[in-house]
């Protein structure tokens, strides 16, 4: 409107031009503002998350990298710049590689049974049960218990001489399991604590996904003559694929950082006399707070970070393959 008005303005030429320039400038500015608005606002709306992430996530991450390049004492603080010396030292330690092995062993022993069990429990909960909410909330109860409390209870069960499990075994005339000296036995015991806490939680996630599977698919399968078991393996599990991937990824990240259960498995908290169950995070703890060597602890923290990134990438590639396979069907 304003523009057409101005064209017909009775003002003298020079004055008119000056007025027009000004007005165009003003217009251009307000246009610019609304352009910025469209372009910038979305970023500003999501910025609180990223600002928080920068402060609480990215900054510590980078600062840890900085610390790992120095000799650094917990109390004394920053020392000399040592470049990659901390990394070289840590990578040459048998304790480091032992911790890597333990971490993966406990991770596999906990994740695999956990996912399998969770799907099975979810399938049972998905059936027509009486007092459905009661059962569904029931599987979540272990999740509410603090990990350290779980540790205390299970330590009592897994004690080498006076523990319930070994009493049962010796009662049956079998040899007691050396929970605190045999590496695999200790990993199993710790994985049991992890599974106790997380299986129910994952089962509920699977249950939610199962309920989203269209019922007519099952009806079609029934008409085709598929039994319950066949339906479970040929309909339910394939339909759960994205959820399984989600659960596997979160279990990976959590599993590689396992600390609480392993630390409270004995009183010293160093992972056993022969480091039978010392995980990477416990090794970080030992270096940082036991030996007060923050430089080396940070180096291990970064190596753990790299391991998780590699595993996450592998997960991503597998996921993509599964996704395309799913699409081809």
């Amino acid at each position, binding site marked *: 409107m304003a523009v057409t008005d101005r064209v017909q303005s009775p003002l003298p030429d020079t004055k008119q031009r000056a007025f027009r320039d000004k007005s165009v400038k003003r217009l251009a500015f307000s246009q610019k503002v609304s352009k910025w608005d469209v372009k910038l606002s979305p970023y*500003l709306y999501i910025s609180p998350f990223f600002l928080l992430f920068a402060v609480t996530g990215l900054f510590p991450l980078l600062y840890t990298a900085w610390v790992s390049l120095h000799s650094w004492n917990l109390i004394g603080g920053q020392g000399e710049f040592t470049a990659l010396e901390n990394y070289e030292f840590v990578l040459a330690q048998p304790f480091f590689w032992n911790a890597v092995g333990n971490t993966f062993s406990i991770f596999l022993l906990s994740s695999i049974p956990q996912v399998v069990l969770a799907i099975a429990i979810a399938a049972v909960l998905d059936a027509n049960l009486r007092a459905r909410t009661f059962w569904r909330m029931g599987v979540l109860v272990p999740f509410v218990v603090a990990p350290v409390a779980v540790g205390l209870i299970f330590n009592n069960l897994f*004690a080498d001489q006076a523990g319930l499990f070994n009493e049962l075994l010796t009662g049956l005339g079998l040899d007691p399991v050396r929970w*605190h*000296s045999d590496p695999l036995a200790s990993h199993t015991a710790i994985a049991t604590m992890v599974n106790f806490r997380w299986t129910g939680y994952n089962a509920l996630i699977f249950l939610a996904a199962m309920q989203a599977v269209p019922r007519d698919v099952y009806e079609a399968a029934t008409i085709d003559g598929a039994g319950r078991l066949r339906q479970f393996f040929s309909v339910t599990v394939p339909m759960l694929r994205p959820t399984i991937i989600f659960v596997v990824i979160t279990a990976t990240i959590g599993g590689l950082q396992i600390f609480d259960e392993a630390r409270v498995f004995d009183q*010293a908290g160093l992972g056993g*006399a*022969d480091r039978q169950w010392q995980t990477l995070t416990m090794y970080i703890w030992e270096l940082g707070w*036991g*030996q*007060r060597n923050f430089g080396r602890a940070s180096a291990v923290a970064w190596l753990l970070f790299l391991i998780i990134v590699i595993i996450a990438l592998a997960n991503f590639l597998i996921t993509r393959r599964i996704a395309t396979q799913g699409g081809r069907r």
Partner: protein
Amino acid sequence: MHSRARTTTLSAAAACLALALTACGSGGPENAGVDGETGTEDVTLSVGTFNEFGYEELFTEYEELNPNVTIEHKKAATSNEARDNLTTRLAAGSGLSDIEGIEMDWLPELLEYSDQFADLSDPAVEGRWLDWKTAAATTEDGQLIGYGTDAGPQAVCYRADLFEKAGLPSDRESVATMLDGSWQDYFEAGKEFVVASDGVAWFDSAGATYQGMINQVENAYEDSDGTVIATENADVKDIYEQVLQASVEDGLSAHLTQWEDDWVASFQSDAFATKLCPGWMLGVIEGNAEGVEGWDIADVFPGGGGNWGGSYLTIPTQGAHQAEAKKLAEWLTAPEQQIKAFESKGTFPSQVDALKSETLLGQSNAFFNDAPTGEILANRATAIDVRPFKGPKYFPINDAMQQALTRVDVDKTDDPASSWEKFVTAVGAL
């Protein structure tokens, strides 16, 4: 509208950043250190303790005596929690209490940072504590970083009923005579016991016994200048071999690790007959062995005296009221007050005069067959004559050693020679 929203977001972000910067950059308040004036200004003193120092009633008493002082007690449940809190806040440079209680075991690492603590040496407190207690908290150039509170002089606790069954003398005087002497004498008595004991071991754990022995060596793991000598020191290797010979070859150990569930449960099942016990261990034994009769305590410790545990009060230099804090710490650790704490929570005093107190010497313990525990432990405290040097690497090395012993004694995954090799590797990695 939009532009205003944007400004708000930006300025909020700027404010956050500014806040973060000031929080990081703020220095400690100005003050005159420990020599400033006291008794004039109204102050609130915070005191950080853990477990039971027995100070609750004393705080009230002090507030009545000094109307200008209000005491705020910050009590951590466990010493580990207190230690994490202390180191984190020392590193951060702020947030510590005006008085921080510390455990004797933390001294080696804290003495390295003695500039973070006020020098508490004062003619007024000279000779107040047993020599070894003060010496442990003094730096090489004479700075005293803490006032001693309690101590852990060790005696030998034993099961009189099991001794009797095995045909050994069982009253506490005869037991003290029998066990008096070197560690070899203690192990010899053990061999005699296990032959007749029908499966009962002589002591609970190789690690605990080793700890009693190594604490009688002046420079076990490090020279006084901090050089690590743990793996070459013949004394260490010798003690290591002696303990394992006694534990495994001679079968004197119950193959337990102290504080583990199995160890706690073993008190109910007659697993062993003797145990090295500092004063505070009496309560632990009584709790674990509830309902078991026959425990007694003998006024003896093989190889001389030995101390395990005990605490100090320190004053971090980051505090704002160091002079008032020092006055309070001095009052709390005076013999009269420490006796009251002993009456309240059983913390055994480390002050010379407190060890002569009637209250202390008259104390007996019903669970330990009415033994005069006050008198016995006072004797044990004065018998301590070695001050073991504990440098900055003492703890990691001692942890590695305890693991080496556990591998052979409890886990049985190694023999003494291969476990020693692993110990050498672990020490090399520090």
